[in-house]
């Protein structure tokens, strides 16, 4: 079973040279720590950064330089900053090649829910709806099940949707799965996790074809 950092590390293997990448809050943010050697990408933060760098050293933090998670960050050489409308022009206009975000639920046709639990939690969608409606390549980083052990990979989402039929790939603590027209297709298992465990943790239609390799790092 993967921890959060390992989920991020596995997602980082999907990065390709020259991509502009938007990382959501939480596990997705950690992806920036595992960019493979030889791969050059630029991270976009929807509050208005292209070329976002690591956190600052203590004492160098600047209240006027934060990421979309409101964390203090730095700029890399060649970075640019811009307003929110320009930022979402990049996103809506498909200039960003990959979006990585978290989810509370994903359905087998690629619907995603991650912004609201009616009557309980209403934080808002932030930029997630714009991102999932426009990105061609969306990877979801998530736990396969909730605290009660119930699957978060469902036939259909029970929570209010963030976007429809948009998720392409999921990296969970148990597996890597592609979202296909026939449902979730199992691609890789987390180290030490059996196919049976993944089947049991997946409520939506799960396609298992042939030997399923274990992830390698």
């Amino acid at each position: 079973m993967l921890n959060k950092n390992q989920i991020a590390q596995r997602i980082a293997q999907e990065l390709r040279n020259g991509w502009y990448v938007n990382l959501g809050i939480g596990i997705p943010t950690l992806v920036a720590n595992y960019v493979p050697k030889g791969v050059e990408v630029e991270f976009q933060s929807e509050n208005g950064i292209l070329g976002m760098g690591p956190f600052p050293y203590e004492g160098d933090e600047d209240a006027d330089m934060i990421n979309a998670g409101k964390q203090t960050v730095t700029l890399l050489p060649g970075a640019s900053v811009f307003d929110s409308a320009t930022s979402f022009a990049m996103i809506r206009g498909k200039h960003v090649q990959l979006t990585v975000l978290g989810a509370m639920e994903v359905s087998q046709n690629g619907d995603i829910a991650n912004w609201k639990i009616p009557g309980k939690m209403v934080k808002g969608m932030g930029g997630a709806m714009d991102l999932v409606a426009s990105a061609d390549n969306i990877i979801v980083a998530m736990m396969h099940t909730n605290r009660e052990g119930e699957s978060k990979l469902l036939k259909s989402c029970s929570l209010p949707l963030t976007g429809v039929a948009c998720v392409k790939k999921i990296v969970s603590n148990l597996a890597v799965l592609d979202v296909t027209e026939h449902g979730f297709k199992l691609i890789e298992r987390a180290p030490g996790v059996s196919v049976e465990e993944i089947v049991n943790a997946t409520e939506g239609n799960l396609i298992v074809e042939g030997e399923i390799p274990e992830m390698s790092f």
Partner: protein
Amino acid sequence: MNKVYKNAKEAIFDIKSGMTLMLGGFGLCGIPENCIAELVEKGVNNLTCISNNAGVDNFGLGLLLQKKQIKKMISSYVGENEEFERQMLSGELEVDLIPQGSLAERCRAGGSGIPAFFTPAGFGTEVAEGKEVRYFNNKPHILESALFADFALVKAWKGDKFGNLIYKGTARNFNPVMAMAGKITIAEVEELVEPGELDPYFVHTPGIFVQRIFQGINYEKRIEQRTFRKR
């Protein structure tokens, strides 16, 4: 063309209860601190506030929420404010949550003479309820309308007496698009300079969008998530 006011108190003198305000900022970054403090002092209420976030419990728009001066919030993300969540879930506060990109574009449209536009964001979700859907290139889009405000309150790093503005870092965020959409736009700046001192090539908001400007004081610039790497 002198747009200079002495301070926040004088600049917001005609903001009245029941008005619609736009407030720049992302989280607590680039928010009009002086104007917010003065709105609290002035005690106007029943405000409709258009702002990406709602501040935190004891800073930013959270200060207006604590005093129950806000009737309705139009935002994209409000997760950092417990008082906000309480007022929203209890029904005291009207809330319109809209996708962040749509919020930015609706402000930009409002200031640009574009009454509405189609966007893919929110199709198939609660956000699309009651909105016209049209297909372009075989993809569904929803109709979103422009946003306007009686006053737009923005914060910039440097500004001159003509209202030209330059923002610092990510404190730019929603400020330029909101500056465009206010019937009256009030800019508070950290440094007010003479015309000619700002390099025209580097002006972010041209002065035509700004009606009033003042030199702000005592900027706290609170940081929400102070994150570091190890040396």
